[in-house]
């Protein structure tokens, strides 16, 4: 009965936190690595 919560696209056994790569309530899996903002030096604003 109920959802199989392990099949909702989340790695519930992960030792790291899930939220930094969480793909949102409608996503099927984690967010793309290249979408995750990373604090790089201001000088690296190349484009």
């Amino acid at each position, binding site marked *: 009965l109920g959802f199989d919560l392990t099949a909702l696209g989340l790695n519930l056994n992960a030792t790291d936190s899930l939220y930094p790569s969480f793909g949102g309530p409608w996503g099927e899996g984690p967010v793309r690595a290249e979408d995750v903002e990373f604090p*790089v030096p201001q000088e*690296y604003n190349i*484009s």
Partner: protein
Amino acid sequence: PLGPVPLQKEHQLQFQMMEAAHQHLPVSADSERMRQFLPRNPYPTPLYYPQHPLSNSDTFEFFNRLSIETLFFIFYYLEGTKAQYLAAKVLKKQSWRFHTKYMMWFQRHEEPKVINEEYEQGTYVYFDIEKWGQRKKDGFVFEYRYLE
């Protein structure tokens, strides 16, 4: 033992609005910054290509094994990501130095002729993003204040 509770009129109205909105759920792009070089609709590749990032691909060791062109590619096209950060880190480890005025990477080609408190002058190699290759620049003055 509780049994159902009939929906009230307001719930039905809400449901109709919800149902209409359900026709166009937000997509992940709606919440993501536009990225110039990273299209959202990935190009379909043959399935026997790797479809997901390799498990250890966001580590320094992995980047350390990439070619210099790949490192520059990542640095210039994956702005604001961990990949850009790691590429920069490896470039530094390979004696490249980032010049914030030219926004380019330089590497000593030979021991500089002049080294003082403010700069060093000599022949450097730099990566030319236009021509996508390494070039040599004689007499370049590398001012420390532009060292990232």
